[in-house]
């Protein structure tokens, strides 16, 4: 193993930012000197240390999507170093340090948010070093450049490593303007790079939140009222304390915590405690069908208008063809491989937290609020995450942990059981959509009306500022790739007792399933080929290009074998264009198998092609699990699912073969975490229709097909 890999293993393995020479400064600020050690800092989280190494504190969080590698590559390109030589650290929660970039990581925003500010800052640092070299040699700046961690004067062949120039560069004002590297000169961006955190993770030495050990730490588990709204009534504390290794029982309003010397003792203690609950009669009788009926019924309300153009009634007059249908999508759990967990130590008016979170700065704020402490008294040390998918965009694990930690004098590691995590997740909202499309005599879309109803995550987050339209829920629906003479999109909030939050694909996933199912149905009802119809109704050349690509690469024109079917979908979401053809097989017992998925993606400039392809595999498989099987249901006021036995996800033997074409582009980078997950839902629904002639409009597909 190279020295670089060893150093990275230590940094990623511990995740601790110690001895880092990254100097916190305001964005774009000039220079810094700390403890007499000069360094060049392009902004608050990027620097070049006295040894000449580029140091980078991650402004975003790593949950598996590969952003740690992507962002490092962007910095490495602009600073002319190898990505393996950059000293990367996982940053604590610190909103001010990274502003205006939000540490919150979701919505496929990371690359898009970081792309320009990071390159701008890195270019300034590079030019500062080149200026220092040119000055030392007494040659014109234009004759010098940066290459492989050094400044070079091409004409004379002189070379000075960054280490020799850092002091001088740090002492001079940072350049106010520095040209960005042109795409034509890229040596890092656009070339596949192995994940920087891959080796340590494979070896089991990378540290996740759940792996944190703090001296004096105790282990803890919890049981929350299984029925929504229930309160803790009784606990057999004596029985719990009799379990060897159990050291404490702490009661909360809707929760009981068991503390012990190890997780095994804690789990036995939870069982022995035999917690009893007082039900909230308003909630404890709630059944799943009631919730879904209310969401569907909300479609009959007028809703809040998110988009309107043209006149629907006028455009519908004389329409040659009219299609309308309603679709429903269920609550979904995240089921991350690493169950919810958090370590916290509350003492002497301060709190230290170790956890893997997608929202390090918001989690810090949430803990401070919960504890009534000033924010500067709360430290959140972030860690790698064993999956995020939106689960770790909520601070509930931190809040529950500090609720417990403030009652004990020692640090405590709180770990959810898989069953608790499944039954007390923040679920993807259940949605109902109705879409009504009129096609004119000219074959063009004359009128397009789309009504959306469901829980509003934005309403919860915005409080009084919410005005009826959930910008996330309507995303995608208000920017379709199919032009129409008149269009109207509405949103109607409909809450239930089920807590809802972000789930990979977010609002646009809902939009994509509905819109791409609907146009597929429309094309079939017109006896048109679903790809040909789409191509005839899309203007955007980049959308057409990905669609033509999958048509040609998937064998779309070949007659599918008996029992198989192919379904297509195309999206332009998160500034990425993507098309997919899913080929499925349905056996005599109506069991669906995803055989092959052909994807074409134009995500603008791909930073790390290997990472883009990995995200496609990821989204296709994660999305297939949910589209085929995913559903959280409620019976008697509680979640019915508990573990991977009743919340089914794809396994190795069920995973499709995936062929992806990455279209080369130097356009602005688009997002990659969500799109493949969003596209696979409609592609699979359309494939089910192609294979069986049955249209499933209520997810999940397997259940829907069996009911059809």
């Amino acid at each position, binding site marked *: 193993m190279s020295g670089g890999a060893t150093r990275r293993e230590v940094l990623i393995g511990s995740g601790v930012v110690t001895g880092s020479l990254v100097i916190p400064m305001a964005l774009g600020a000039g220079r810094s000197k700390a403890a007499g050690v000069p360094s060049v800092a392009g902004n608050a989280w990027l620097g070049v240390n006295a040894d000449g190494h580029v140091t980078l504190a991650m402004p975003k969080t790593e949950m*598996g999507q590969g952003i740690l590698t992507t962002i490092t590559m962007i910095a490495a390109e602009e600073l002319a170093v190898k990505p393996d030589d950059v000293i990367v650290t996982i940053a604590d929660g610190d909103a001010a340090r990274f502003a205006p970039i939000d540490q919150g990581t979701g919505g496929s925003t990371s690359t898009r948010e970081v792309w320009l500010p990071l390159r701008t800052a890195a270019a300034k640092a590079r030019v500062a070093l080149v200026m220092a070299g040119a000055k030392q040699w007494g040659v014109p700046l234009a004759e010098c450049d940066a290459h492989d961690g050094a400044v070079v004067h091409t004409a004379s062949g002189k070379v000075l490593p960054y280490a020799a120039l850092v002091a001088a560069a740090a002492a001079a004002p940072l350049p106010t303007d520095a040209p960005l590297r042109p795409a034509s000169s890229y040596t890092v961006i656009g070339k596949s790079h192995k994940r920087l955190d891959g080796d340590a993770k494979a070896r*089991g030495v990378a540290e996740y939140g759940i792996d944190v050990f703090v001296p004096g730490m105790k282990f803890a588990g919890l049981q929350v009222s299984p029925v929504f709204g229930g309160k803790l009534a009784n606990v057999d504390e004596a029985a719990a304390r009799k379990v060897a290794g159990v050291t404490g029982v702490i009661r909360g309003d809707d929760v009981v915590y068991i503390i012990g010397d190890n997780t095994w003792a804690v*789990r036995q203690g939870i069982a022995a405690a035999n917690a009893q609950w007082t039900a909230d009669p308003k909630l404890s009788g709630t059944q799943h069908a009631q919730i879904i009926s209310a969401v569907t019924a909300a479609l009959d309300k007028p809703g809040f208008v998110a988009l309107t153009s043209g006149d629907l009634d006028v455009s519908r007059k004389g329409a040659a063809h009219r299609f309308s249908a309603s679709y429903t999508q269920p609550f979904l759990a995240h089921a991350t491989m690493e169950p919810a967990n958090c370590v916290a130590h509350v003492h002497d008016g301060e709190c230290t937290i170790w956890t893997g979170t997608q929202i390090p700065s918001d989690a810090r704020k949430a803990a401070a609020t919960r504890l009534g402490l000033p924010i500067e008294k709360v430290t959140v040390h972030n860690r790698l995450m064993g999956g995020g998918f939106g689960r770790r965009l909520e601070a509930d694990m931190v809040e529950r942990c500090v609720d417990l930690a403030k009652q004990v004098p020692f640090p405590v590691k709180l770990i959810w059981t898989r069953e608790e995590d499944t039954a007390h997740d923040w679920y993807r909202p259940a949605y109902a959509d109705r879409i009504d499309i009129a096609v004119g005599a000219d074959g063009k879309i004359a009128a397009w009306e789309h009504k959306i109803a469901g829980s509003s995550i934005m309403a919860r987050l915005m409080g009084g500022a919410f005005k009826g339209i959930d910008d996330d829920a309507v995303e995608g629906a208000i920017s379709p790739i199919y032009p129409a003479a008149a269009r109207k999109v509405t949103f109607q909030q409909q809450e239930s007792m089920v807590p809802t939050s972000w789930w990979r694909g977010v609002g646009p996933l809902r939009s994509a399933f509905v819109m791409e199912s609907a146009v597929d149905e429309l094309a079939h009802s017109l006896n048109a080929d679903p790809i040909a119809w789409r191509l005839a109704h899309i203007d955007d050349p980049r959308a057409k290009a990905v669609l033509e690509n999958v048509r040609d690469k998937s064998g779309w024109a070949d007659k599918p074998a008996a029992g198989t079917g192919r379904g297509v979908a195309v999206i332009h979401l998160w500034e990425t264009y993507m098309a997919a053809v899913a080929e499925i097989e349905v056996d005599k017992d109506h069991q669906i198998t995803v055989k092959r998925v052909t994807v074409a993606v134009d995500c603008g400039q791909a930073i790390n092609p290997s990472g883009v392809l990995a995200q496609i*595999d990821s989204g296709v498989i994660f999305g297939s699990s949910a589209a085929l099987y995913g559903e959280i249901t409620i019976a008697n006021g509680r979640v019915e699912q508990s573990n991977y036995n009743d919340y089914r996800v794809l396994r190795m033997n069920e995973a499709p073969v995936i062929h992806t074409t990455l279209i080369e582009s130097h356009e602005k980078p688009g997002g990659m975490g969500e799109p493949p997950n969003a596209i696979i839902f409609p592609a699979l629904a359309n494939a089910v229709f192609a294979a069986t002639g049955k249209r499933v409009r209520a997810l999940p597909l397997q259940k829907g097909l069996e009911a059809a």
Partner: protein
Amino acid sequence: MSVTLTINGEKRDFDASPEMPLLWLLRDVARMTGTKFGCAAGLCGACSVLVDGTRVFGCQTPASEAVGKSITTIEGLTQQPLGKALISAWDEVDVVQCGYCQPGQIIAAASLIKDNPKPDDAAIDAGMSGNICRCGTYPRIRAAIHRAAEIHAGEKA
């Protein structure tokens, strides 16, 4: 209560109940965190370890069942030729995403290759279907197992 186990070739006494599943003994008592907690129900394979060379679910195996046997965790496997071949292949194919399931996947792959030095896709599917990956690294795991088998066979030749 104490229990004596041989982990990665080292015999050690632990202050733990013999009933404690290996998963928690390894993580909380031995403080070896490469073995991961995923479901504690034998459903996901994240806690896989080798006992006398065969994969078991650490969450379903009481420490008492491993007494007198040889336990190999991811930390030990990666020091052995087969483990090194697997890590090389995993790195080469760039398998890892969130990475949380990967130590368990690699343990399962080691067990598979020990039994079947050149597994085909069907054998890989059968041998690996006890391990869940939520990031969808299955296609690359498949490719990496083929590559690891190749590397390992080359070393033995």
